[in-house]
Structures are given as structure tokens and as C-alpha cells.
């Protein structure tokens, strides 16, 4: 029993090596997280996203602004797609509308066959009977409630303390987000624009 004790096994390694390994591993976890995000920002395909209003009470929470997009609710196709579960990872194919903003063209469980001008973004289902958001950004609960609410990791935007109110009071229709989507579908916010003018830009580092 004592021979198999974790502390006895670890004690065979000199303390100096253990301390070095601890500091190194903790640092590496942080740096790996940074690099994973920076890689998306450096090499990802850019998509433009229109922002739509979310519940105003939730808009500014602590140090960040909560954002939602038309692609946050996606119509699940009826054919050949058994019901999606909450928490499930899905891939959404994005096309472009006339103004160049991204719009969802389909949602699948597996990586879809990408065509010309199609960007695939990975997301997680947070609700499977959501109401739709129409072109004006209003919530429309009429009709079938078979839409999925999907998060892509683009839903929060941290702003310096005190500056959140400014974005909060801005009309959501004027806010636009440019995101980078990596070849594996991970997305990160790259720029935030108001009336088409960049307000915040995110360098990789």
C-alpha cells in the first residue's frame, strides 16, 4: 500500500526537478491556450457577422458585452437529422448574403463537404427548441420551434472597465463583428466595428 502511494513515488524525483516541471507545465498550459487562440486570429478565414440584440438585462455583465448573431439560431433540417441534443458539438456551414454577412446554410453532426465560398464553423448546441431571429433581429416564436440555439465562442467581448456602457447603449444593428474561423472550425473575434468603422481590433498577441 505504502509503496503505491502517489507521494512516495513522486518523492523519488529530486525536488528541484519537480519544482521546475511544475512551473514549466503551468506556464505551458497558459501559453498553449494563448497560441491556440492566436493561431485562429493569424490564419483563420474572416467572416462578417451582424450583431442582433440580446436580452438587455444580460447585455453588460461584469467586464464584458454579450453578443448574439443571426447564426446563433439555426434551422435544423428535418430530413435525415435525428434530434440534436443539448451540449452536442455541431458544424454549421456558412454562406454569404447580398451584403457579405455570414448566414447559416446548414447544420450537421459531422464535418460537411465544403464547397466554394463555404466556411464551416464549429459550435455547441445550447437549446434545441429555440425561437428564430428574423432579419430585423427580432425574436420570432411563431411557426415550428425546431431551431437550435448554438454558441460559437464569439458571444462575449471583454472591454476595458467603464467602456462596456458605450457599446451597451449603441444600437445593436450598428455593431458588426469580424471573426476568424480556423480550418478546423474554431472561431475567434478579430474586430468589432460600429457603423462599419473599426472600434476595437485584436492582434494575435
Amino acid at each position, binding site marked *: 500500500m505504502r509503496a503505491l502511494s502517489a507521494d512516495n513515488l513522486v518523492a523519488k524525483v529530486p525536488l528541484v526537478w519537480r519544482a521546475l516541471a511544475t512551473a514549466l*507545465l*503551468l506556464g505551458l498550459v497558459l501559453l498553449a491556450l494563448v497560441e491556440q487562440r492566436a493561431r485562429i486570429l493569424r490564419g483563420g478565414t474572416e467572416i462578417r457577422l451582424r450583431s442582433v440584440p440580446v436580452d438587455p438585462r444580460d447585455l453588460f455583465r*461584469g467586464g464584458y458585452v454579450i453578443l448574439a448573431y443571426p447564426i446563433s439560431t439555426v434551422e435544423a433540417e428535418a430530413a435525415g437529422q435525428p434530434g440534436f441534443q443539448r451540449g452536442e458539438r455541431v458544424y454549421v456551414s456558412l454562406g454569404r448574403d447580398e451584403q457579405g454577412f455570414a448566414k447559416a446554410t446548414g447544420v450537421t453532426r459531422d464535418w460537411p463537404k465544403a464547397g466554394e465560398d463555404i466556411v464551416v464553423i464549429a459550435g455547441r448546441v445550447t437549446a434545441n427548441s429555440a425561437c428564430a431571429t428574423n432579419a430585423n433581429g427580432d425574436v420570432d416564436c411563431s411557426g415550428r420551434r425546431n431551431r437550435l440555439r448554438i454558441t460559437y465562442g464569439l458571444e462575449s467581448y471583454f472591454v476595458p472597465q467603464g467602456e462596456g456602457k458605450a457599446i451597451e447603449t449603441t444600437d445593436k444593428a450598428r455593431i458588426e463583428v469580424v471573426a476568424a474561423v480556423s480550418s478546423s472550425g474554431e472561431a475567434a473575434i478579430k474586430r468589432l466595428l460600429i457603423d462599419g468603422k473599426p472600434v476595437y481590433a485584436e492582434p494575435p498577441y
Partner: protein
Amino acid sequence: MLTGSYRKRLEADLPRWVTEGWLTAENAGAIRRSVAREQGGIRLPAVLGLLGGLLIAASVAAFVAAGWEDIPRLVKLAMILAAIVASIAYAFRLERQGSPRGADAAVTCGVLIFGAGLALVGQMYHLPADWPGGALLVALGGLIAAVLMRSNGALAIALIAICAWSGGRWEEARSGAHLGFFILYLPALWLSLSRDNRLVHHLVVLAAASWLAMAPGYGLFDRFDYGLLAYGLALAVFYVALGALALDRGLPSVLTACLPWGLLGLVLVLNTELIRILDRDEARAGHAFRFVFLAYAVAIPVVAVLAGFARERRFAWPLAAGLAFALLVPALFWTGIVTAMAGKIIVASLVLLAATALVVAGSVGGIRRLVLAGSVLFGVAILILLWQTIGTLLDQSLFFLVAGAALLAIASGARRLFARLNPPEKEAA
């Protein structure tokens, strides 16, 4: 397990034993020195160091949360990395100087700064508020530090983070048990077996309890089912039996931490069942679901092992009997007789019997927690019975009279009973 209260008790007893002539003054001194050595020297600097470390980590966290833009993000990240390295380096120095507790405090501070660093990276790259994902990384960092630096503080942080991660994922998925929990919990459990830190022991036991509580799935909590009470009762019985067995047979001391939490659950669930059966609307026949059967299938054998294999039968048998009485309560709900007067009388009697058995086991075994839990269960049960009576107050008075008379009868026979169960060993001299 040497606690402060044990040392105080010893300080009071040693002079008495010396005056009685059972112990020489030299032996008493040797015992004092041995206890002082196991207590690990002076603790005050380490305690103050831990508090100071916590404050520094909190300062880093608040600094990150402020999102102050005057310092470039990369410089902030470098500061966090430097702070982690400094904490670990300081821990190394303290460990070398022979202050393991101080080193533990420094490592704990380092892990907390690592958590603040994760928040900073989340802020830099606008990571969504995926707090279970963040908790998972904190748990990983905590486990790394707990293994390599043999830190109890880091292990405690890791255990809390594991629960937050697992609970968050469970809540998100709205489905059954989150099995991923064990990937991190089992290593933490393994580490805790070689630790003698009571906080770590309690956290290990509570983490398992939280997973077990969530295992039946989100849906059952959403539309509350009384079967959950039976499930909770079986788990509480399992914890009490396991804790008592660990105390009796000298199993790893982490298991003894099951006892207080099991007792707490037992008292809460039994009193809730009693309130429920006396309520006109809530006294309905219940039903068991799969997890209730599973919990019973685990609890009953452990109670049987406690009764069969305990070293001190005078303590184990009353306890096992009390636990068996408790397990019968939900079974009565399943039979459906709970709506009749007979069912109410039987449930009330079972709860009082279980309470009495706990007090008996606690007094015989010298485990104050059992006596306390049994007394609280007994006292609250009587208050509930007076508040929501079985039948009229006159019927209730008759019930108490019979129950009191039965207890007095048992008390008069108890001495002989215990003497027969486990005759005291004849002293050699």
C-alpha cells in the same frame, strides 16, 4: 489523525495518569514530544503565509478583472507567468528550509495565480464565459502542482474545480451522469490516500457525494421526485457504514471523512420523510427508480459487512440496526400503507428507533458524532411529531407513552445485552 483537540485532551489526561501512577513522568514527556513532533512544529507562520498568499492571488485576480489597458496584454501575461514561477521557486526554498507547510502555501498561491492567468487569457481572446472549461484547466493545473509539489492546498483547489467542471457540464447537457468526472477524480483520490490533511479528505468525500447526487440525471431534479429522498437515504447509509467501518478496521483515513456527511444526510432525509408522511397531501405511495435500487444494492452489503466484520460488535451492531431501520422507511412508502394510520406509526417508530440506535452506537463506541447525530434526529423527530401529530394529540400522547416505556425497558436490559454481545476481555494481571 492528530487534531488540536486531541492534544488538549492529552494535556489534561497525562498529569492525571501520572498522579494515578499508571504512567511515569518520563513516559508522559516522551508522549508529549512524540505528539508535538507529529503536529509538525510551529504552524503559525505557515497559516499566516497561506492567508497572505491568498490575498496576493486575490489581488492578481482583481487586477485581471479590472481589464486595465495601460499595460499591454503580453506584459500582463508575462507578469502572471513570472508570478507563477516566483511562487514555485519560493515553495522550493521553503521546502528546502524544512517548512513543508509554508511550501504548500506558496504552491497554493501559485495555482490560484495560474487560475487568474486563465481568466486573463480568456479576456485577451474574448473566450466565452465557458466556466466549466475554465474549471477543467484549473483542475488540471491544481493536480499537476498537487502531484509534483505534494501540495494539499493545490489538491483542495483541484477537487473544488473538478466538481465545478463536472457540475457545469452536467447542467449543460441536461442528461444523466457525467462520466468524465472520474478521469480527474480518480488521480485526486489516489493522491488523497497518501495525505493526512483533513480538508483534503472531506473534499474528496464531498466531491464523490456531489457526483453521486447528480448521477440520476438533471430531469429528476427538474420535476422533483420523492424517489430522490430514498436515493439520498441509501447514499447516506452507505457513507455512514463506510465511515464507521473505516474507523473500526483502521481503513485509509480518507474514508472516515464519510461519517459526518453521511450522518448529516441521514438526519436530513429521515426528518423530511417524517414531515412528509404526516402531511395530508404529501403522504402518497412512492416508487423506486433504477438509481434507488442501485444505491440500495450498494448500501445493504456495506451495512452487512459492518455488522459482520467490525472488530467492536457492541458498536457496530446497534449502528447497523439503526441504518437498517432507516433503509426500511422508503420501502414502507413503496408498499403504499403510508396513507393509513399504521404506516404513519411504523415510519415514526422506525425514525425514533434509528435515532436511538445511533445514540447507542455512539455512546458504546465513544464516537461523539454518532451521539450528536442520533440526538438531533431524535429531538427534531419529536418536535415534528408534536407539530404534525399522528391522529389527534391524544393519540400522539399515547404514541409517546408507548415509545418512552419501550425505551425504558430497553435501557434496563441494555447492560446485560451488551455484556453478552461482547464480553470485556479479562485483564491478564
